[in-house]
């Protein structure tokens, strides 16, 4: 099956000489939900806007549904739905008027009222956009993408600023779209979102893909599925080599006095760890274990946290 979204050696440098995207390759299949994950300024928006045909790449090829933007712009526009990272829709139109306006641009759109229902905006259908809350505006932005009745959905940070409930609800809408055969490309800062929503994802930093795969595979690549985190009361006795030698430890990271061990079998590692602590008559200040997350993958790959919050 041909890829729905494909790009090859994509590069983009802005006027100021900023290399926002440097050599990006992506291949997204039909029916997939693909996530671009990365910190601020990683080049997510630049990438997605090039794929959407809104930005000209400095070099590289883009094909969407087997066509290029240059030759089949109009046809492609009919088949994709877009929500930009930041759009302020007209404040003096109501929610329904806004959706009708967007629907009118497409040959065969979805009925605006259906989309209102899907995003639970019907209560606000006759409210002016200017009176909506931030989260409601965000949902309306996604609604303007869905009203296109698209085959491919591009969402740039669709859930930023939403409360947990609205986020979950939006995830459900996206899943529903994609269960019906639609393809989704979204960007996000949120690990849990990427883990739960995306089949595959690419972690982007400095305009390059630094890791790509299913969330499970990325976490497995980390070496362990669990993370043991601890801190010693006396910070001086912290020697990575010592911890590395413990049974079942795949990697060690120290960060702000805390040590994180990526481990395969915590039930073997933890007793050994406690033994070492006891022998050195050191004292534990803190000890937790958790499932490894994408955050750990990211920190491991870049040495930085994805979101500093």
């Amino acid at each position, binding site marked *: 099956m041909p890829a729905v979204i494909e790009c090859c050696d994509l590069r983009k440098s802005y006027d100021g000489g900023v290399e926002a995207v440097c050599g990006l390759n992506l291949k997204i299949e039909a029916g997939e939900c693909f996530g671009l994950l990365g910190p601020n300024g990683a080049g997510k928006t630049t990438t997605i806007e090039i794929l959407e045909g809104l930005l000209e790449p400095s070099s590289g090829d883009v094909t969407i549904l087997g066509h290029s933007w240059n030759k089949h712009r109009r046809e492609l526009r009919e*088949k994709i739905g877009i929500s930009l990272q930041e759009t302020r829709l007209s404040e003096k139109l109501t929610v329904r008027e806004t959706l009708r306006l967007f629907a009118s641009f497409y040959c065969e759109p979805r009925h605006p009222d259906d989309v209102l229902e899907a995003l639970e905006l019907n209560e606000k259908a006759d409210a002016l956009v200017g009176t909506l809350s931030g989260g409601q505006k965000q949902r309306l932005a996604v609604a303007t993408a869905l009203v296109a009745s698209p085959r491919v959905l591009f969402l740039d940070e669709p859930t930023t600023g939403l409360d947990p409930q609205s986020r979950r609800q939006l995830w459900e809408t996206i899943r529903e779209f994609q269960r019906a055969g639609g393809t989704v490309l979204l960007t996000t800062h949120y690990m849990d979102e990427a883990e739960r929503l995306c089949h595959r994802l690419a972690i982007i930093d400095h305009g390059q893909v630094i890791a790509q795969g299913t969330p499970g595979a990325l976490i497995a690549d980390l070496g362990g599925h669990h993370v043991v985190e601890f801190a010693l009361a006396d910070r001086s006795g912290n020697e990575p080599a010592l911890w590395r030698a413990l049974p079942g430890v795949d990697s060690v990271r120290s960060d702000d006095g805390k040590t994180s061990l990526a481990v395969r079998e915590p039930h073997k590692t933890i007793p050994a760890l406690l033994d070492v602590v006891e022998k050195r008559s050191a004292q534990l200040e803190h000890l937790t274990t958790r499932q490894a997350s994408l955050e750990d993958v990211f920190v491991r790959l870049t040495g930085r946290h994805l979101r500093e919050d």
Partner: protein
Amino acid sequence: MTVAQPSSPASKKRPLARSALRNGRWAGFRHLLGARLLELAREREVIFWVFGFPPLLALGLGFAFRNKPADRTTIALVSTPYTSHVLSLIDQARERSAIRTERVDRARAADGLRLGKYDLVVEPLADDRVQYNYDPSRPESVLSHSEVDDALQTAAGRKPVLETSVHLSSEPGSRYIDFLIPGLIGMNLMNSGMWGIGFALVDMRQRKLLKRFVATPMRRGDFLMALASSRLILMVIEVGLLLGFGVFIFHMRVLGSFASILLIGAVGAVAFGGLGLLAASRAQKIESVSGLINVVMMPMWIFSGVFFSYERFPALIQPFIKLLPLTALNDALRATILEGSALAGQSGRLLVMFLWGGIAFALALRWFRWT
């Protein structure tokens, strides 16, 4: 383009509660125009500045210039021992109703003259000698001087050497308000054209709404046409409102046909719409387009004869003034409304406006940025 998959996924899933939509060629244009008009109708400030303010301005200026008879002058008579004699001379004069006299001391008279309260200071120095004091650069002072001098001389016994007669005219058509209304129409079309197009576009660009629109199959031409159409609709209302105001409140006589007035208005709206589009073609920020629009409009506010005739400017720059689009619009409107001149006679002025609009439009399309 051949697409294998039969129907879009989103509509497959849900049992369709409502029948699927099919849009025709003009659906986008219709909705864009409708949305634009709704937005305008819901902007109270816009309604006031476009529709409320110009009639108010006409009302204010119209009454200001109507209630003060142009030929009435106020003079200060400095108190001296000879003042009563001069006063009695003025009282005998035929023009006495046109001269308002205030008896004040010399200092007050000088102050009043400086502040524009008095047009002229008259200081009696003897029973047969008076001294006039005024600023020759103030036209009303010059007028007052000749009028008062005339009155005093005649009352003191001077005989006219030439027989003259006077015919006074204040017919509708030659009053200030008649001059003003077409000027206000022109100015209003310029303001709302430049702001309504230029400002609206940059605002949409700044809000990323233009980018959002071009991310849909929306036809860009339809978008611009909808914007232009909304301007033309507003133009009809603006022109009708101000003209109606002149006719009903000030009993203005409109000699030209409404159709030709609207046609001229439409050409004017096109010219200023084009300039607005050009001003908005690149600007990313509201502030920069505001500055640009003001720079473009400023010379026309001054030179194009909105409130006063541009005939007062030096002859040397008159040809340039006549090449400004607002001058052409104002002149064409005045000729049609006040003199009922035929549209054919306005072709030069229409051409001037058309060229401004056309060239601006062509450049704007080359430079315009949607993102």
